[in-house]
């Protein structure tokens, strides 16, 4: 399902918003991949009608008449928002997130909230309280995580766009595993107001679509300066959709030296090599860069993210909202039981790690050190971007893997994010786009840009997608 065509159909009145929505709802209901947590048929149809009745108002909006699914991490007013957790199974927010508010105002119609790893912690969408999501390409495989549901939704052609969040790779990795395009904007471009916090200094909301065009239009809608988010930046508004047609000329693109040492699979390396040729064919110059620091990102990430989440999740105490244990002798018991019942194993584990790394006596050895690694990563990127315009590398080490994967490496799951984490630590924008197919499974390539270089990233990806067909593959 192509976003551009879908929007054209609406704007030229070939199909109404209601019809498009109805179609999406039907497909969503038939879903066997456990993509969705909650459906909102009635609200969606009402909204679609409203858009149809106010065609002139909505027709020029970036998402006019387009059905969309939102990751269930965005607070939607009066609409259940679970964050993939039992803790929030019946939580109904009294307010709307900026991302969903913006998407609504841009003419989109939310049909459902998508499944996700619990509290955005995971790389396979297997930690959700609502059960794992299956990869549309092969049901016994994972779609990636934590935004597995949103990625699968677009990959399965239920909607042409969906939203996700990326803290350590949670948009880019599922995009790669599901064969679609997904982008993490620069930290601070998109408001975090109403986005349930996991790791505050790295969380960023971003778009999924088949191609760069869909991502550009969705990002145009999502991004806005928001005074309710102190970490959001005020910038001159760039129209990403318009930037797709700009001529940025021939770029210098950095490719990682000795990337095979990082454990990237042969198939992915092949796709990577092929993409290099495509890039050169487009007139870009490739430049080998030494980025040995890349692999240290992961150790820093697994200190900082647990640390921040251990604090962010303290508000779940059974007192003001969310799950409360029925068995409570006293206050202390209330906390213990509620949090034990409400959180899954991975979340508990990360909270414990986070609690430890912030503890007296361990702060310097862990948290402070991890923040230094972060600075080191950022410094290295700054150095690299003095020489190149973009960095190109694979998105993941492997293609989609089996659910309940056994591995001799107990940290194998965490290493899924090896190649995506560095951009999160530094706050840089990055996009994953399909660049290969092997074993009838998709492969993704990743471009990392300099701060607020979304336009260049989308533009370059768009140019790649004009001369390749990977993004058109469907299961």
């Amino acid at each position: 399902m192509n976003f551009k065509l879908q929007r054209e159909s609406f704007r030229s009145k070939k199909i109404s918003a209601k019809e498009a929505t109805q179609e999406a709802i039907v497909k969503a209901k038939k879903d066997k991949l456990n993509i969705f947590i909650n459906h909102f048929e009635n609200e969606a149809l009402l909204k679609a009608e409203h858009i149809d009745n106010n065609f002139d108002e909505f027709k020029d909006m970036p998402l006019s008449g387009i059905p969309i699914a939102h990751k269930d991490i965005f607070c939607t007013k009066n609409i259940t928002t679970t964050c993939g957790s039992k803790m929030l199974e019946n939580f109904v927010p009294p307010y709307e997130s900026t991302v969903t508010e913006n998407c609504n105002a841009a003419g989109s119609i939310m049909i459902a909230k998508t499944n996700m790893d619990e509290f955005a912690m995971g790389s396979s969408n297997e930690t959700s309280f609502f059960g794992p999501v299956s990869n549309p390409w092969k049901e016994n495989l994972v779609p990636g995580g934590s935004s597995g549901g949103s990625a699968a939704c677009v990959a399965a052609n239920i909607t042409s766009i969906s939203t996700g969040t990326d803290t350590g790779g949670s948009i880019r990795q599922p995009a790669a595993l599901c064969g679609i395009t997904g982008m993490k904007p620069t930290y601070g471009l998109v408001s975090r107001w109403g986005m349930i916090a996991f790791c505050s200094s790295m969380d960023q909301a971003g778009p999924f679509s088949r191609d760069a065009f869909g991502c550009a239009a969705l990002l145009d809608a999502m991004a806005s300066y928001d005074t309710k988010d102190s970490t959001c930046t005020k910038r001159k508004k760039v129209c990403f959709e318009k930037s797709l047609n700009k001529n940025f000329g021939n770029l210098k693109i950095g490719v990682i030296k000795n990337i095979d040492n990082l454990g990237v699979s042969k198939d992915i390396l092949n796709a990577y090599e092929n993409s290099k040729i495509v890039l050169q064919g487009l007139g870009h110059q490739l430049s080998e860069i030494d980025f040995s620091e890349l692999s240290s990102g992961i150790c820093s990430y697994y200190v900082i993210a647990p640390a921040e989440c251990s604090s962010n999740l303290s508000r779940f105490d059974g007192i003001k909202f969310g799950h409360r244990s029925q068995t409570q002798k006293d206050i202390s018991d209330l906390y213990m039981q509620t949090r034990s019942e409400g959180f899954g194993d991975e979340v508990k584990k990360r909270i414990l790690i986070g609690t430890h790394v912030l503890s007296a006596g361990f702060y310097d050895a862990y948290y402070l050190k991890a923040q230094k690694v972060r600075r080191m990563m950022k410094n290295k990127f700054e150095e690299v971007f003095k020489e190149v315009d973009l960095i190109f590398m694979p998105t993941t080490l492997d293609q989609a893997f089996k659910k309940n994967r056994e591995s001799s490496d107990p940290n194998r799951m965490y290493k899924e994010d090896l190649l995506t984490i560095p951009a999160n630590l530094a706050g840089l924008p990055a996009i994953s786009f399909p660049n290969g197919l092997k074993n009838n499974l998709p492969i993704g390539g990743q471009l990392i840009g300099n701060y607020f270089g979304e336009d260049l990233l989308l533009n370059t990806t768009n140019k790649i997608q004009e001369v390749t067909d990977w993004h058109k593959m469907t299961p």
Partner: protein
Amino acid sequence: MAQNDTLVKGWQPVIGLEVHVQILTNTKLFSPAKNKFGEDANTLVDLIDMGLPGVLPVLNEGAMKQGIKFGLATSAKIAKTMIFDRKNYFYPDLPKGYQITQLHFPIVRDGVVDIGNKKIRIHQAHLEEDAGKSIHDQYDANSVIDLNRSGVPLLEIVSEPDIRSASEAVDYLKKIHQIITYLDISDGNMSQGSMRCDANVSIMRPDAKEFGTRAEIKNINSFKFVEKAINYEIKRQIKVLEGGKTIEQETRLYDSTKDETRSMRTKEFANDYRYFPCPDLVPTNISEDLIEEVKNSMDELPEEKEGRFKKEYKLDDYEAKVLCSEKSTANFFEEVCKTTDPALSAKWIIGEVNALINKHDITLDDSKITSDNFSSLITKIKDGTISGKIAKEVLEEIWNTGKNPKKIIKSKGLEQISDEGELESIAQSVLDKNSSQVEAYKSGKDKLFGYFVGQVMKETQGKANPASINEILKRLLNS
């Protein structure tokens, strides 16, 4: 480190105070909910104060300016960069499970406060959010939570352990109270909780090189209890140490009904607050321009006002100090001086008005005395309409009824008799009625002069003009 005049049974008490002050602002520290006291439960709670998933804090610049004011008033260093940290702990009235406070980079550092005979240093003052309230008397088996207070901006003022006695502690606290109320940083109401005080108390031998182990005393909610709690604790620690035991570093609650401090239940595991910089907020660089802006907007400090009063209104040190001890009194005085005599006003405020305030235990602002009716009264004394003695009566009437002095004087017929002729005839009649005393006076009993004055006053119900009567009697008696 020893200060001989503060030794207790040969031990040197060492005290540091932590004062939490609720800052006067329109809205809370990180949320746009109104910062008010006394409203119905849970009506001043914003999404942010609830700690709902997905909400984010945004700093209130008004609260920051109040902090800067305090720094300026205490000659402190204003931070070039201030950073907010999270202090993580669980408590039902702490919605997020952490408090946003300032640990390493507070807004103010290294201030000083003059308590008269010595200076007490302020280690730092930092901004932080208040927690909500837990209430235990609504249900038998349950407590309830009111989040109105959650997120209210606090300034925590931490002194160095420079205080050496309970009375010094009270002086310090009163000075802090004066500064924050003068500058409208806070209303400093200890009974309502907008000013709260914890005391860190330890004792040491006068020649010891290091401070002793300190205990933290909480739950002190009046100036009087500060003194009592500290004195109790000093005595307790002396008893412990002289009994051969050691002081535990612990938190103790002051019980005002029993006048003692009690150890709080110790938890099985220590509370580790795991401070780290709050990732939802960014550092704030405080510019010289901002500091200058705040400085220019600040009202006079007590010392500045005293100096000005002495000059402008020709008051002496004592008068200026008393009138300026509370801003409301100083403001009242200045308002009054717009329409009547400063010297007389000062005398009457310091004397009679203060006496009434103390007797009835309400503030000037809450009383029925207004600058208008008071000024009117002073003018009537000054121009001789009534005597000083009568004026006292009138003042009490104003205090009780708030009526205009003109009306009171008229309705009670209290005008002073100043007419020379009238006074002379009354004086003469008194002297005529007391001829034997006149003779005694003329033969040397000077003290009887007072008697004659008294008699005239009696005749005139106190309304005779004292100065005139003195002069007339003298004249008549010497003739």
